[in-house]
C-alpha cells in the first residue's frame, strides 16, 4: 500500500550515480546479479523470520476482539469502523501532527545551522560534539524530572523567563497548547544534537574546493549555506526528514514521561483534555490498560497509514527540488 504512490519517485533518485550504471553495463539476467541479491538478503531474511509473522498476526488481530488471554472472537471490520468514528483517535492524530510540526521543523533547521557552525569551528571541536550529543543519551527518568520542573507553574524556569520579560505565567502542563509546546521543546532538546551530528557527517563529504571557489567568487556565509551546503546535503536532509517523520509520528516516550504525573488515571492519557496523547500513547492505552488488543492492532495500522502518507509527501517535496 505504500508503494503505489511512491514507487516512481522513490526509485528515481536524481543524483546520477545509479541511472548511469545500466547505460554502461550490459543488460544481465536476474541470476546474473546474484551477488547483489545476496548482499541485500540479510535484512529481508530477518524480516521474513521475525517481522512478517508478527505483522501478519497483528493484521489478523485487528479483525478480532481479544483481551490478551482468552479466546479471540471474530469482529469483521468493526474495529476499523470504530476507529474511523473514534473522536479520541482523531484527537490523538491531531496532537501527534501538531507536536511533530512544531518540534521537527525548527529542530532540523537549528541542527543544520549548528552542524555548519561546528564544522567551521577550529577549536574545542571534540568537546562541542560531545556536549551536543549528551541530551540523546541522558536517562529518561532524569529528563522527566527535569522537564516537569522546568515547566512547573510557580517554580519553573520557563515561567521565570516569561516573568523576566514582563509576561504572564503560563500553566504549561495544564493547558492545551502549553502541553503541546512543552513536549515539542523536550523533543527538540533531545534530538537537535543527534541531527546536527548526522548533518556534520554529511558536511564532511562536501569537497572543500567548492567552498574555496565560492569564496573567490565573493559569496558570503549565508549565500554559501543556501547555494552549496543545502544542495550538496540533499540526500542527507531527505534522510533526516523521513526519519524524523517516521519517529516523530510514532512519538511516545517524551509525552509519557512529561505527563505521567498529571493526575491521570492512566500514564498513557497524555494530560488534561488528552492534549498530549499521541497516537502511540493511545495504542498503549487501548491495548494494555483496556485489554483491547484487537482495537489496539487496528490503531497500529492506522498509525502505519498516517506515517506512510506523511513520509511519501515529504519525500516528494524534497525530491521535487532536485533537478
Amino acid at each position: 500500500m505504500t508503494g503505489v504512490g511512491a514507487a516512481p519517485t522513490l526509485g528515481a533518485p536524481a543524483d546520477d550515480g545509479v541511472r548511469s550504471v545500466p547505460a554502461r553495463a550490459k543488460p544481465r539476467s536476474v541470476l546474473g546479479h546474484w551477488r547483489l541479491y545476496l548482499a541485500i538478503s540479510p535484512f529481508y531474511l530477518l524480516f521474513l523470520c521475525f517481522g512478517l509473522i508478527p505483522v501478519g498476526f497483528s493484521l489478523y488481530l485487528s479483525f478480532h476482539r481479544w483481551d490478551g488471554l482468552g479466546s479471540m472472537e471474530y469482529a469483521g471490520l468493526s474495529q476499523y469502523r470504530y476507529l474511523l468514528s473514534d473522536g479520541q483517535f482523531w484527537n490523538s492524530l491531531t496532537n501527534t501532527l501538531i507536536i511533530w510540526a512544531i518540534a521537527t521543523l525548527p529542530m532540523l533547521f537549528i541542527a543544520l545551522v549548528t552542524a555548519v557552525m561546528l564544522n567551521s569551528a577550529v577549536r574545542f571541536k571534540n568537546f562541542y560534539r560531545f556536549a551536543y550529543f549528551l541530551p540523546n543519551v541522558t536517562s529518561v527518568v532524569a529528563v522527566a524530572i527535569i522537564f516537569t520542573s522546568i515547566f512547573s507553574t510557580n517554580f519553573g524556569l520557563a515561567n521565570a523567563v516569561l516573568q523576566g520579560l514582563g509576561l504572564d505565567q503560563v500553566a504549561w502542563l495544564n493547558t492545551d497548547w502549553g502541553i503541546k509546546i512543552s513536549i515539542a521543546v523536550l523533543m527538540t532538546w533531545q534530538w537537535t544534537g543527534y541531527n546536527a551530528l548526522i548533518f556534520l557527517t554529511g558536511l564532511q563529504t562536501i569537497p572543500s574546493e567548492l567552498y574555496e571557489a565560492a569564496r573567490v567568487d565573493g559569496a558570503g556565509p549565508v549565500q554559501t549555506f543556501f547555494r552549496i551546503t543545502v544542495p550538496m546535503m540533499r540526500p542527507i536532509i531527505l534522510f533526516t526528514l523521513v526519519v524524523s517523520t517516521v519517529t516523530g509520528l510514532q512519538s511516545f516516550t517524551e509525552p509519557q514521561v512529561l505527563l505521567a504525573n498529571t493526575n491521570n488515571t492512566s500514564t498513557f492519557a497524555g494530560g488534561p483534555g488528552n492534549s498530549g496523547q499521541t497516537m502511540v500513547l493511545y495504542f498503549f492505552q487501548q491495548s494494555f490498560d483496556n485489554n483491547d488488543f484487537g482495537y489496539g492492532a487496528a490503531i497500529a495500522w492506522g498509525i502505519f497509514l498516517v506515517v506512510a502518507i506523511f513520509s511519501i509527501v515529504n519525500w516528494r517535496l524534497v525530491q521535487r527540488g532536485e533537478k
Partner: protein
Amino acid sequence: MHLSRRALLYAGLATTATAALGGTTAGCSVPNGSTGRNMTLWYWTGGLSDKVVADAKKRFTDISLKPAQIGGYFKSKLLTTMTGRAYVPDITGLKGEDMASYLPNAEQFIDLRTLGAEKLKDQYLPWKWAEGIAPDGSMIGFPIDTGPVAHYFMPEVFDRAGLPTDPADVGKEMDTWEKYLAAGERLKKKVRGAHMVIDALTIYQYMIAQGTQRYVDEERRFIGDHEHVRRAWNMAIDAYERGLCSRYQSGTPDGNAAIENGLLPSQIGASWVAGDLKLTVPKTKGKWRVAALPGGPANNGGSFLAITKSCRQPELAFEIVTWLLNADNQTRGFTDATLFPSTPASYQQEAMRAPDPFFGGQATIDVFGPTAEKIPIAYHSPYDYPLDQAVSDELRNVNALGKDPRRAWKDAMAKCRRIADHLGVLT
C-alpha cells in the same frame, strides 16, 4: 587512535561468537513452567517484602524457589509469556487494578479452592478475598495487601481555619462529603490560598470506590449513568464550582511546594500515600494526622498472588503462597515495604501499632485497621477501566481546562455509550 577495518572485524566476530555460544547453552532449558526442581515466582519491586521472599527460599528446600522482580510494565510481560505458553512463572503477582481483567480467564490459573484455600478464608478480609474470585466461582488470586483510604490532614492549618484538629473529631465532624466540603469552605475563607481538595477527580474517584458498583453490572449492563455515578459526579462538580479545588497536580514541584506551605492541608489517599508524603515532603514531618475518610471506607490498590496452570507442583506452590502471606509475614511486609496487610490479625501486632513520628506519634493503624475491615464487597467488571477513563477525563477537563460541567457530563456519557457499545456491553 585509528581503528583499522581488520581489527574491528576480528573484535566483532569474537563478541558475536560469544553471544551465539551463550545462546546455545541457555537454550536447552525446558520452556514451560517448573521442571520439578525450579519454581519461579514473579513479582514487582515493592510487591512483596524482599526479606520474606528470601526466607521462603531458605525454608522451602524441596525445590529451588527462583524469585524474580520484573521491571517495567508487569502485565505486558505476564500476558506475553502466557499467550506464548512458554516460560510462564509458577507463581505470579497480579496487580489489584488488573484483577478484573484476569478473572474472565480463570482457566489460565489454578483454582485455589482445589488446594484447600477455603480453610484459610476467615483469616483474610472478606471483601479482598471476594476480589480474587472469578465469575464461575473459582478462586485465582490469593490476597497480598490492601490500600485502605484515609483522610490525611495538617492539624495546625485546620486550627487556623477553626476546624477540628483531633483525628477522632475530624473523622466525626467530616463523616460525610457534604460536611467535608463545608469545612473546605471555612478553610478557603480563613487561610489565604489554601484549598481543601487538590483536584475534583479525587472526590469523584473515592466516592465511586466507596460504592459496591462501578460502571457495568454482573449482567454486563451499563450502569454508568445511574445514581451512584451521578451523585459522585455532582459532588465533585459542586466542590469545583465552590472554588474548593486547587489546580495543583500531585507529585509535581508546584504541588509538593503547596503541600509544604500548608496550602493543601487535606489529602485523601490510601495507606501507601504515607510513604509518598515522607519521601516528597519530608519537611512536614510531625505536621500530619490521619482521620477516617468522609463518606465511609474505601480501598485503592493492593494485589494478589496466583498459581498458573504451568505449575507442576501446585500443592507446594500453594504452601509457599500461604506461607508468604500469613499474618506474621504480612506484618513484615508492612514494615519492609509499606504493604498494608489483608490479614486483620496483623493489625493487633506490635510492629503495626508503633507510633509514627511523621504523624506526630499517632498509631495510624487505629484509622487504617477499622477502615480496611469495613470496606464493602464490590463488583468489578473488566470493562470498568475504559469507562472510568472516559468519565475521569471529562472531569479533569472541567477542573484543569475549565470546561463547562454540563457539557462535560453529556460528553462523558456519550463517550461511555460508544465505548460500552464497542465492547459489547449492553446499553
